[in-house]
């Protein structure tokens, strides 16, 4: 499979502190490399503040990176200008986490869904027919066309947001925690809708979430992020069945299990403490202060992402 998106050593530092003081940087994303193949879903997991959403915004060039590049269909997106950039914007888009602020409250559903078409000046024939087709596709109908966002539930709004993104027939969609603001009962509907659309249109997803069960359900491959770095990346089933990195192992061992007998039998890998401050990440391996297996080497040298088994990469001194 060819890589649709290739991320190379991507970095994003945000300045903090006053102008007169010595400038400090939050290293939100600090040297991330991965690929996303056409037609697949790459799950990106990690705790809040680890740089997931910043990575997503960088991939769509909603932020300019401090360093590194992102190749989309072989072209560095940060070098695109004019028509090429607009073409990229048509092919790659995003569904946001919060459907309550991601739709303009002053626009009707019709205008919201037509907006991308107008921006890109695409001829779709009868606009009403086109919008209607998209509404049906995401499970809404003609009675919703001229209503305003506040008349809808969270799940319905997320459907509108998806229809709006679909309007441009994109290749790549970033799903930035698309279901975490929704009720559990609605989550499954939206996830299934996204899966169906992926099959139908051969879409490529970057699925961001902190909910591991949801990520497992959605993803073909999974990347685990910790404090601005990817610590493990590999096949979804393999990550869940045989996680390598202590952080991944801890995360997976802590997924709640519905059966209490099963749950008692399971060995839980607890990690202590809070994630460190991203302004001053610990030297060596960033996870070492919280890692139960930390050795002297972990405190001094930073482990590189190495291929442990085929397609399964890990950045940990336990495996090299």
């Amino acid at each position, binding site marked *: 499979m060819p890589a649709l998106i290739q991320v190379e050593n991507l970095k994003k530092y945000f300045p903090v502190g006053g102008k007169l003081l010595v400038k400090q940087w939050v290293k939100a994303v600090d040297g991330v490399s991965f690929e996303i193949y056409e037609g697949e879903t790459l799950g990106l997991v990690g705790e809040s503040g680890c740089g997931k959403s910043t990575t997503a915004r960088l991939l769509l060039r*909603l932020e300019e990176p401090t360093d590194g590049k992102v190749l989309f269909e072989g072209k560095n997106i940060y070098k695109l200008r004019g028509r090429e950039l607009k073409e990229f*914007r048509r092919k790659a888009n995003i569904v*946001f986490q919060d459907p309550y*602020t*991601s739709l303009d409250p*002053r626009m*009707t559903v019709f205008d919201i869904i037509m907006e991308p078409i107008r921006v890109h000046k695409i001829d779709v024939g009868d606009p009403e027919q086109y919008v209607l087709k998209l509404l049906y596709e995401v499970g809404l109908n003609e009675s919703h066309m*001229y209503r305003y966002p506040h008349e809808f539930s969270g799940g319905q709004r997320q459907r509108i947001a998806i229809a709006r993104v679909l309007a441009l027939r994109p290749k790549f969609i970033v799903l930035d925690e698309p279901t975490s603001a929704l009720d559990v009962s609605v989550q499954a509907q939206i996830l299934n809708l996204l899966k169906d659309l992926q099959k139908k249109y051969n879409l490529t997803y970057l699925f961001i979430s902190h909910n591991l069960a949801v990520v497992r359900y959605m993803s073909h491959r999974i990347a685990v992020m910790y404090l601005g770095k990817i610590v493990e990346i590999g096949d979804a089933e393999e990550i869940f069945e045989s996680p390598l990195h202590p952080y991944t192992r801890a995360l997976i061992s802590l997924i709640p299990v519905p059966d209490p007998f099963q749950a008692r039998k399971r060995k839980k890998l607890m990690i202590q403490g809070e994630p460190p401050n991203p302004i001053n990440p610990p030297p060596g391996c960033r996870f070492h202060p919280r890692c139960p297996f930390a050795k002297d080497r972990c405190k001094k040298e930073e482990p590189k992402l190495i291929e442990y088994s085929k397609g399964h990469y890990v950045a940990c001194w336990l495996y090299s």
Partner: protein
Amino acid sequence: MPGHPLDRLSDAFISLIARVMTRVNPKWLERNRYKLEEWRLMLYALNRSPTGIAGLILAMGFVFIGIFGPYIAPHSYDFSYIAATGKYKLYWLAPPGTGGAILGTDDLGRDLLSQLLYGARISLVVVALVLPVGISIGVILGLLAGYYGGAVDEAIMRVTDIFLAFPGLILALALTSALTMRIAYAIANNPWLTSFVSAVFALKPSDALNIAPTLAIIVALWLVWWPGYARLVRGMTLQQKGNVFVMAAQALGMSSREIMFKHILPNILGPLLVFMTLDVGNVILVEAGLSFLMGGQIKIPEWGAIVQHGSQYLVNGAWWLLIFPGLAILLAVLGWNLFGDALRDILDPRTRRSIEFR
């Protein structure tokens, strides 16, 4: 919601809009049903606010008299009973009710009521010329500063600060005295400008030159009126910029200009409209104040100038020359302020709810 006698009127108004728009475009009603319903609720809320209704009546009265005042005035603004009848003793500072002069006359025997009616036109034109320009400059600069941030923001807001730090009235006063002669010169040299100005202000072409100070005041107010709007709009833009739909529009490849005018501006229009309404009164007041301070053109029926001119004759007991123009200014300003206050409550859905169920 308990019924209100005015609700039926509102319903009739709303269905009239619906009928007219449906005739223009058959699908209009289907597409704007929600908007129409919201307008209806706004009218219902207005019906339940007595001060709002009073403000609306006064404000509309000001606009009506501003447009039609010169036509309903019993005499022309420069008509003098003394010149017409030769009865100097009777019509010199005649009190209200004297032989045809309902609100009395001034020292030249001119009819005060007619002067006030013509004065409303001048006030209205000043408002109509000052606000759109001041607001446009302020809104555009505020949007740019708030949206782009950084160096653009710094540059625009520091200039705004300079204007705000300098007392607006003094600046306007200085500009007015500096500009008056130039504008008078321009009017004198352009016949079309003469006829345009006299038509707009409902004056005789021979008096067009005397309106120069008022035009100077308008230009001066353009310069001092935008900073308030720039600051207001910048703040609201910053607030709206944080909304995810702005980032969603960026992800679509929308240009910054489109995002500012299609997403941010419509979302700040409500509070902006309230501010504008309250500001109409301010313009009337400041313009009257400036024409008062400038000494006032005796030939021009400006409300501020009438007060200034009439104040000299208070010792002669001519109270009507102060009270009536003062009252005209008061009612116009009060009307717009009351209406603006009501509008604020009506446009905000949270407070609207509390009015609806009162």
